[in-house]
């Protein structure tokens, strides 16, 4: 089948099997920044934002979300000269990254959380990231990263893509 999606702010017309998952469609159309892991909804590495909200792209049939806005990790920086978004910087600085495989998903979930809740409690952070498994960091540094990201966003007064109406 053929249909349009808005991926990272750009309209893309894609051809795909009507049984394909959003993960398959994204990766087959060059969005390799979206990682593939368990493909069962259990690890969270395939997370993208669908209209600003985290979903497991491996558990979403692409045909069910045609025309909708999909944000991958690239969507956080494509219009930004600095190269890294404040959330990405925070993960790098606070040591929330080791091998980096789970990181795009964690950054997207953090970005979505902070867009709605700029000062999350530990409980809020753990709830938001409860489906994102990390085999390396042990999670403490990830909590630190989210808190640092919240500080950075507050200090820079940077608003999320969604809030800027993109």
């Amino acid at each position, binding site marked *: *089948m*053929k*249909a*349009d999606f808005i991926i990272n702010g750009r309209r893309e017309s894609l051809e795909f*099997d*009507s*049984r394909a*998952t959003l993960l398959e469609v994204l990766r087959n159309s060059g969005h390799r920044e979206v990682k593939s892991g368990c493909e*069962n*909804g*259990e690890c*969270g590495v395939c*997370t993208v934002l*669908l209209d600003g*909200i*985290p*979903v*497991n792209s*491996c*558990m*979403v*049939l692409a*045909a*069910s979300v*045609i*025309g909708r806005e999909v944000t991958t990790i690239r969507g956080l920086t494509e219009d930004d000269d600095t190269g890294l978004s404040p959330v990405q910087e925070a993960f790098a600085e606070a040591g929330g990254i080791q091998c980096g495989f789970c990181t795009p998903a964690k950054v997207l*979930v953090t970005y979505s959380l902070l867009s709605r809740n700029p000062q999350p409690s530990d409980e809020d952070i*753990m*709830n*938001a*990231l*409860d*489906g*994102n*498994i990390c085999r390396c960091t042990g999670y403490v540094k990830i909590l630190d990263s989210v808190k640092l990201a919240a500080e950075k966003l507050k200090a820079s007064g940077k608003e999320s893509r969604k809030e800027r109406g993109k």
Partner: protein
Amino acid sequence: MNKSTDPEIHIERGELSWRYPQKLSEVPELLSEGYIPHGGGTTLVKTPLVKSKVKRGRGFFDLSRLKELKAFSLSGGTCTIGAGLTYAEVVTNISTFDINHILVKALSRAASNALRNRITIGGSIATFPVWSDLAGPLIALNSRLKLLDSSGKESTCGIEEYFKDRSIGRNKLILYAEVPASASVSYYYREVRTRFDYPLFTVSILPSGTGGMAKAAGGAEATGIAKAAGSVGATAATSGPVGSESTGDSAGSYIVVVTGTRGKYRKLQVASSASNLPKQPDETEKTGLQFPDRQGMSGEYLEHVARVQIRRGLEMLEKAAGQGRSK
């Protein structure tokens, strides 16, 4: 090319077909043509229809454009929850007026954040997996469902009827579930090993009478749970309620629903006090709480843990009720 209500979507011959109804009036025809409702897709994505390219039905019809299924309303002490709402949307909606509602407690912890953003109420009721975080609270709340069939006729049924007799829901669309708006005096527990895990069992406890809605879906009088629950054995009707004899009088008693048991769930009425719960494992048969053996965990162990959790829940609720009385 297959017919599609959306002109921008092109589906080739031989593919799984998708339909995108915009109005509820389009649904009966789709049901009669064999199209299958697609809610969040978290179960459907793994079905043979998708995975093995076997052509069983005509295809899927996506529910996300049907505004009736995305509606949430609160009226006369009853919440009407559109079947297309996700767990996350239900939590957000109910939290606006009752942050302690049992559905908020249950659904805010179910699955994972990303899954809660996709799993729908209709899809969860239709599948009722053993790890469901929705089924226990809906049974305890004596929820009523509104269904639409392929001839366009709407009907109403109780959640337990729907779960017990699968023919009731066959080839029908769940439009919405009705639950009492007030259910903050409640206890919810899910037995998991890590935060994001399938619960091995869940425990929902509400004071008897919470599920007695003024009006059932479609306007008929609902059966008050207090009346119906004299000694309800959902799956093993022969065994009696936990603890002392139930009189059928709801005053000071609690409805306890445990999912994950043999036969999927068990509903009990517990008379007034946690001390009525059997303490010894050899009294297990009194509760009827029998669990299947699970990987690394015997049914007996799960039964023991479930009873501990029921006791905790009852103690907590009684303490809260005592504090309320002394105010």
